[in-house]
């Protein structure tokens, strides 16, 4: 059976055409057949999933409504806590960590009938843009197994792209949902900051982190967002009001004002990507929207500001991994030695680099020039976006300046890797929603991602415009040739 649409799966389950157990078996069959090559998953939760599937089948048989995601297999990025199932952050530090609680989003998915099949690979502590910083496994891009899936939600993106699950959750601190979605040819949405609870998301940079869906279609992204968003008393930064997401998305583009961000339409962007984004802009113009180039000068400072603020927050967020209460502990009898070795052995090089950067940015004598200056520019950037949204309803850009790069291509050049986030960090710094969806393929057959950004809480508008684009094109739902072919359960 096809696993590319949550909507279809739920409909077929609800009417009794297929059982949750059959759906789940199909999902595991596909994972078993191809995850050796793709490496999307770190942990499979077969028993928990099967128990839930049986439970769903029983409840449906007794006439119960099992929810809008009933029977739908989902993959969860392994920085989201799952009660009783190890949650590693792809780090040696947490390789054996079993949380005694579910993340709020995990609980909400399950309450809506979703069945969690497993935990997906990521860059260690979500720090990276290729998933190569995982200490626990390598994930490959289903479109070209020699290339990266993007990151840090690379496992989630690859799992959806490979048709193992129709939907997955990721987290996005500077592009970690959208960039892998773009590189793997799926839809990825980073919601407005505070729209989705962060409780149970293992923090990288608290003021930027946001959980969101990676899906095969825009409609499924909306469906997942409806389930996971909304206020959470356990997260003080979750917004008090729920997102207004109509049951039927408005697909009309008439009178929509679209801005093409000039700073992200330059020679720094791969020509084929640039051309694809231009074609998308032209399509918007043809479809009734007005399209203009718009300059947001603060975007150019985005990467610098992002790496000051994100690393500063990370340096504090990762201080708790000291070997005292949980996780990896080095075998040393003196306190200082235990601290030092635990953190030396438990963290990988990129995590250490960022802890060092962040500690520096907050240190006496550098705070004003680094962290404080970063906050200042961050508010400038926010103002730039606000000004932009007075004139435009939506902003367009490429999601990533290039399509999937080769495994190993950038691992020795952290700065080049950081620049992969140039188009995406702005939305996190401004706290606004942003969505990536496929808008074409390059000459190598690799998917290209189009990014749509809107003002805070404009998810309905973003999803509506994306839906219209998706319906008018046939980029969605394609399965990569590299791993194509039906698999029987």
């Amino acid at each position, binding site marked *: 059976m096809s696993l590319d649409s949550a909507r279809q799966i739920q409909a077929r389950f609800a009417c009794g055409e297929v059982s949750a157990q059959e759906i789940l078996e199909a999902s595991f069959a596909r994972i078993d057949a191809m995850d050796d090559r793709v490496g999307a998953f770190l942990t499979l939760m077969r028993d928990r999933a099967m128990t839930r599937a049986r439970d769903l089948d029983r409840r449906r048989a007794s006439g119960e409504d099992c929810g809008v995601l009933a029977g739908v297999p989902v993959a969860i990025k392994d*920085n*989201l*806590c799952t009660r009783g199932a190890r*949650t590693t*952050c792809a780090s040696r530090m*947490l390789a054996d*960590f079993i*949380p*005694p*609680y579910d*993340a709020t989003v995990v609980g909400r998915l399950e309450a809506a009938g979703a069945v969690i099949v497993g935990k997906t690979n990521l860059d260690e502590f979500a720090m990276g843009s290729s998933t190569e910083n995982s200490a626990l496994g390598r994930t490959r891009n289903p479109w070209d197994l020699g290339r990266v899936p993007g990151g840090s939600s690379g496992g989630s993106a690859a799992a959806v792209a490979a048709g193992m699950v129709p939907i997955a959750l990721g987290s996005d601190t500077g592009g970690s949902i959208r960039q892998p979605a773009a590189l793997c040819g799926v839809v990825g949405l980073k919601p407005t900051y505070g729209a989705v609870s*962060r*409780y*149970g*998301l*293992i*923090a990288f*940079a*608290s*003021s930027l982190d946001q959980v969101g869906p990676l899906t095969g279609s825009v409609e499924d992204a909306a469906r997942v967002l409806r389930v996971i968003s909304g206020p959470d*008393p*356990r*997260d*003080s*930064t979750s917004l008090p009001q729920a997102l207004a997401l109509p049951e039927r998305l408005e697909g009309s583009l008439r009178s929509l004002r679209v801005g093409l961000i000039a700073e992200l339409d330059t020679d720094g962007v791969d020509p084929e990507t640039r051309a694809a984004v231009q074609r998308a802009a032209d399509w918007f113009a043809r479809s009734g929207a007005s399209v203009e180039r718009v300059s947001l000068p603060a975007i150019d400072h985005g990467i610098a500001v992002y790496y000051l603020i994100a690393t*500063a*927050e990370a*340096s*504090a967020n*990762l*201080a*708790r991994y*000291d070997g*005292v*209460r*949980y996780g990896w502990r080095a075998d040393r009898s003196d*306190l*200082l030695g235990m*601290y030092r070795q635990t953190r030396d052995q438990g963290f990988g090089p990129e995590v250490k680099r960022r802890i060092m950067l962040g*500690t520096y940015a*907050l*240190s*006496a004598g550098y*705070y004003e020039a680094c*962290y404080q200056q970063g906050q200042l520019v961050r508010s400038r950037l926010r103002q730039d976006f606000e000004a932009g949204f007075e004139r435009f309803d939506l902003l367009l850009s490429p999601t990533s300046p290039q399509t999937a790069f080769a495994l190993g291509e950038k691992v020795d050049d952290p700065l080049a890797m950081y620049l992969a986030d140039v188009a995406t960090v702005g939305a996190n710094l401004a706290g606004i929603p942003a969505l990536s969806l496929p808008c074409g393929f390059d000459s190598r057959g690799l998917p290209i991602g189009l990014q749509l950004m809107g003002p805070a809480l404009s998810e309905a508008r973003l999803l509506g415009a994306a839906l219209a684009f998706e319906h008018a094109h046939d980029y969605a739902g394609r399965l990569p040739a590299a791993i194509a072919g039906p698999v029987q359960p």
Partner: protein
Amino acid sequence: MSTTPTYEAVIGLEVHAELLTATKIFCGCAARFGSEPNTDVCPVCAGFPGTLPVLNGKVVEFAIMTGLALHCDIAPRCKFDRKNYFYPDLPKGYQISQYDQPIATKGFLEVRVADATTRVGVHRVHMEEDAGKLVHVGAAGLAGAEYSLVDLNRAGVPLLEIVSEPDIRSSEEARAYMAELRLLLLTLGVNDGRMEEGSLRCDANVSVRPAGRAELGTRTEVKNLNSLRFLQKAIDFEIERQIRVLSEGGAVLQETRLWSEERQVTYAMRSKEEASDYRYFPEPDLSPLVIDSGWIADIRARMPELPAARRTRLVDLGLSSYEAGVLVDQGELAAAFDAAAKASAYPRAIATWLIKDVTRLLNEGKLRLAELPFQPEHLARLVDLVETRAITVAAARQVLAALVTEGKDPAALVAEMGLAAMADDAALREIIERILDAHQAQVAEFKAGKTKVVGFLTGQVMRQTQGRAQPQQVNALLEEALARR
């Protein structure tokens, strides 16, 4: 002890008060003392990955109340910050505190030292979470311990940090400030005042400078001051020590010192590995705290009467400032006074009874008023009986002992114990004549001019009447009778 005239001490106090909220500051765990180790702990206060803090509104309310009681400005908007440092009792590797935007600033506390009232400025009041506790095995401290156990019951217990201005000039004044602050927190019901248990802690910043000099000397921070007495002694020691160092041409080192009650000295703590840089930055997991004026007004309206106001009111009722002070400093006496005085025309007499006889009874029995069936209204009635001369003071003391421990109506006790005043002149004269007959020798001494024996004879009469006769009346009748002999 006092400083030599050429030096002046400059002292500021930093007080940490654990708040008496039912739950911790950022999670739902019980905030209490004495549970089994690591039983009042959840993933949030243990700093587990992915957990988030949620601010306890009661903590803010207590902070506002304390700020108002200290005449502070309450910030309409403030925030929390992360204070970063590694220690095994600090689960997140940072403490959530308030750095540059405390909830309350610029207040003062009036402090009485030897009849003079001075005003000690309150620099700031801020909210923060407490750390856990380390239990060292094999040694008294971390140094030399075989291993250490971590107890996180206290991690996340809410604290108020109250920082004074360096306005204090003597150890007596420091003690008085601390005592008054403790009383204030007790009166507000935000802290239990137990310095010995560590729920109210105090650090003193002490420096000295040549008298008349404006700039401050190098200060030391003295910790481990877990009683008012230790506080005063440690400050005295530290002042003397610094003066000695300076007089000998040395320099005071800026350092943290601990008071040793055993050795009666302060000593330098093991110096830290490096100068501490806490790398404060705004806590991104908590939104800025907005306090609207309506909330403040509501809290102000619900505040109990504060000690200073209470003292003034008692003085207005006719009490001496000493009496008012004694009653208010022991909150439960003041409460008993208020209840009794309401039902009596003799407030000053009630105060005297509370301060002298009731206090003596309590001390003798090591009792607390709250533990007894004592009813203040009964004290009011007893005082009425004394003041209207229905019973004597001596009889009243006997009634009081029963009244305090049995909680009975004094009039009933007087009847039961047969202690009604004996005011009948004829009956007293009869007793007096009998006594004089029995003490011919003393009567002769009186006649020879030794008038002192009147006291002895009065005592005999009082004993005969079991204290029920009024001494003045007995005296007058006795002198009459002696004159007739």
